[in-house]
C-alpha cells in the first residue's frame, strides 16, 4: 500500500527540497520504491538538488495536461536503483496545476510506488495546498527560529482543514522535522530547543537534522546527502527519520559531526 507524504513548511528556505531528496533517497536505499515529486511549478529545484537537471524532458504539468504519459516524465536516479523523480515545470505558472490533474497523477503514482514524497512550494497558496491535498502524512520542516515555527503552526492548521483526509473527517498523520539544529547553541539558551518547538506546535517529532556544512556540499554536487556523505551527521539523521517514517522505533539522538564537536569544545574554551 503506497503512502503519500507531503514535505511542507510554509516558510521558504528551511530545507524542504533538501529533506525531500534525502528522505526519498534514504527510503530507496532501504529497498523501498520511492518517487519524489516537485510541486514548485515555475521555481523547480528538486531536479537540481538531485543532480537530474539535464535529464528533464517532460514534467508534472505535461502529464496533467496529457502531453506526456507518466512513465515518460519519471526520471530514474543515477545512483539509487529504486528512486525516481517527477520534476515540476519551470516555464508554466502555478495555475497550470489543477486539483483534478493532481488527483489523477497521485492516484497513478500510488499504484507504481511504495512512497510518493511531495516537495511543496513555500507559502500557503495553490501549489502548497495542492501538494498537501491528497497526502496521507505530512512532514513539517521547521527551523528552531520564530518565523519558521509560526509558519509551521499555520501549515498545521491548513493540514487539519484543507486536505482531503481532513475534509473526510480523518486525521492526517503529522510529523515535525527540525532542521538546522545547533544543539550547543540550544543548550546555551541561544536557540529554541527541540522541546520548545514540539511544545509550541504540539506535534510529534520525526527527526532532528543538525546544522552542517555537508548539506551545502551535497546540493553543490547534486546528490542527496545520504548518497554524497552517508556517514555524516545529517545523513545519519535523515536515515533515522526515514526509518521512523516507515514505522520503525528508532531512538532520537542528536548526532553531530565529531570533528565539529571537538572544534567547538576548543573554540569555546579559547573564547
Amino acid at each position, binding site marked *: 500500500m503506497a503512502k503519500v507524504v507531503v514535505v511542507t513548511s510554509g516558510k521558504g528556505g528551511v530545507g524542504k527540497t533538501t529533506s525531500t531528496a534525502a528522505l526519498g533517497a534514504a527510503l530507496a536505499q532501504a529497498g523501498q520504491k520511492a518517487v519524489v515529486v516537485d510541486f514548485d511549478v515555475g521555481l523547480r529545484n528538486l531536479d537540481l538538488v538531485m543532480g537530474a537537471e539535464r535529464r528533464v524532458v517532460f514534467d508534472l504539468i505535461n502529464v496533467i495536461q496529457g502531453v506526456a504519459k507518466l512513465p515518460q516524465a519519471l526520471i530514474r536516479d543515477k545512483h539509487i536503483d529504486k528512486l525516481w523523480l517527477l520534476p515540476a515545470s519551470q516555464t508554466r505558472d502555478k495555475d497550470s496545476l489543477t486539483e483534478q490533474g493532481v488527483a489523477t497523477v497521485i492516484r497513478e503514482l500510488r499504484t507504481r510506488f511504495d512512497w510518493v514524497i511531495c516537495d511543496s512550494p513555500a507559502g500557503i497558496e495553490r501549489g502548497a495546498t495542492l501538494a498537501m491535498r491528497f497526502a496521507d502524512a505530512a512532514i513539517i520542516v521547521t527551523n528552531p527560529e520564530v518565523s519558521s515555527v509560526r509558519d509551521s503552526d499555520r501549515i498545521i*492548521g491548513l493540514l487539519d482543514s484543507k486536505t482531503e483526509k481532513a475534509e473526510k473527517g480523518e486525521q492526517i498523520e503529522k510529523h515535525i522535522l527540525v532542521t538546522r539544529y545547533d544543539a550547543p547553541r540550544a543548550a546555551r*539558551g541561544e536557540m529554541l*530547543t527541540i522541546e520548545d518547538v514540539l511544545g509550541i506546535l504540539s506535534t510529534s517529532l520525526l527527526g532532528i537534522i543538525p546544522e552542517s556544512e555537508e548539506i551545502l556540499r551535497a546540493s553543490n554536487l547534486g546528490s542527496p546527502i545520504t548518497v554524497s556523505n552517508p556517514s555524516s551527521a545529517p545523513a545519519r539523521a535523515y536515515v533515522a527519520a526515514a526509518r521512523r517514517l516507515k514505522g520503525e522505533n528508532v531512538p532520537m539522538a542528536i548526532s553531530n559531526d565529531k570533528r565539529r564537536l571537538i572544534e567547538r569544545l576548543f573554540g569555546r574554551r579559547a573564547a
Partner: protein
Amino acid sequence: MSMFGLFKRRGSAPVARERLQILLAHERTARGKPDLLATLREEILALVARHVSVEDDNVQIKMDCGDTVSTLEIDIEIPNSKGFRALSCNAVSNRA
C-alpha cells in the same frame, strides 16, 4: 565574551518561546472562525440602521483585542431633530 558574561547572560531562546506562545494562542483562536468583533459590528450597525438613518460620518468604531477580553466600542450620533437623543452603544464581549 568573558567567562563571567557567559554565565550571567540570559539566552534569547526563552524570549522567543514566550513571544511565540502568546502570538500563536491569538492566531489559533482567530483561525477558521469568522471574526466575532467584526460580525458584531456589522450586525449592530445594521440593527441601528433599520430604525434610524445613520451617516457614515456619525459613526465612531473602536476595537481592541486583549488577552482575555476584547472590546468593541460603537458611538453613533443620531440627530435630535429626528426625535431621538444621541445614543451610545458599548458592547463588551469575551473573545471566543
